[in-house]
């Protein structure tokens, strides 16, 4: 969901996978990626729209994802929870890069 927010209007599955690969150096299998997107979509955390099919895609539409308002709320809650847990651990883990 963070990758989708960062990609903005260009968030479709191959781009999301490339973005994750480039930013956190993690290769995501396509099965896991589509499964995850589908589950987030079913939970109402993501929304999608389709674009015009291009010749490169042999007539298949491109599905762009965007984080819904509910998804943004869920991300805020998750961030706040994580920040609470990270607090006070700089002595052990060092400062964040």
């Amino acid at each position, binding site marked *: 969901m963070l990758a989708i927010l960062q990609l903005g209007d260009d968030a479709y599955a191959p781009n999301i996978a490339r973005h994750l690969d480039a930013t956190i150096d993690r290769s995501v299998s396509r099965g896991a990626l*589509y499964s995850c997107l*589908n589950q987030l979509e*079913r939970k109402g955390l993501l929304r999608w729209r389709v674009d015009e099919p291009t010749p490169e895609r042999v007539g*298949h539409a491109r599905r762009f994802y965007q984080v819904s308002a509910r998804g943004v709320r869920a991300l805020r809650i998750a961030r706040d929870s994580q920040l609470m847990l990270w607090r006070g651990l700089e002595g052990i883990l060092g400062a964040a890069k």
Partner: protein
Amino acid sequence: MTHASNPLLEPPRWTQALLLHALPDESLRDAILGDLHEEFLHDVADVGVRRARVRHVSRATGIAARAVFDSAVCQSWVSTEPAAEVRPAAVSGAAHPAFGDSLLVVLRRVRAIFGAASFSILALFAVVVGVVVNTMLFSAAEPRSPRASSAAGIGGVALLLASVALAAIVLCVGPRWRRKRLRGA
């Protein structure tokens, strides 16, 4: 040179057939097929045709396996409604779009009812009721009065035939519709 002019620059077709069977949702399947084709073309430019085909097969089989597993476990891989449709709407044969849409909804719901297991149970129940009512009508009729007996008999037989016909339609046609619907046909 475009990919269409050279068959070597196309991904293996059996992967497309595999995904057609593995992904019941037409919209999601369309997007995934497009994504895979686009990635295949990028891979061809980056690493060559042979490795691109290997990667494509790996991706397609991974998606199919995950979709089948997820569908069996939690009935997922079915899309919600899109946020906004950018693609131009398909030309509809219906004279009135609202009427066409509502007719489509009714047809889908009827198909869903026919495909449901509960409807098969209902049909079997109807057969049982038909047999019971038929027996009751025959027993209630006066055996010494041939006219009453024959009227009750005709009514009972008609009811029984209707029940059997309904059950046959549901058992034969209903599951087939359901299979077609799951395949996205």
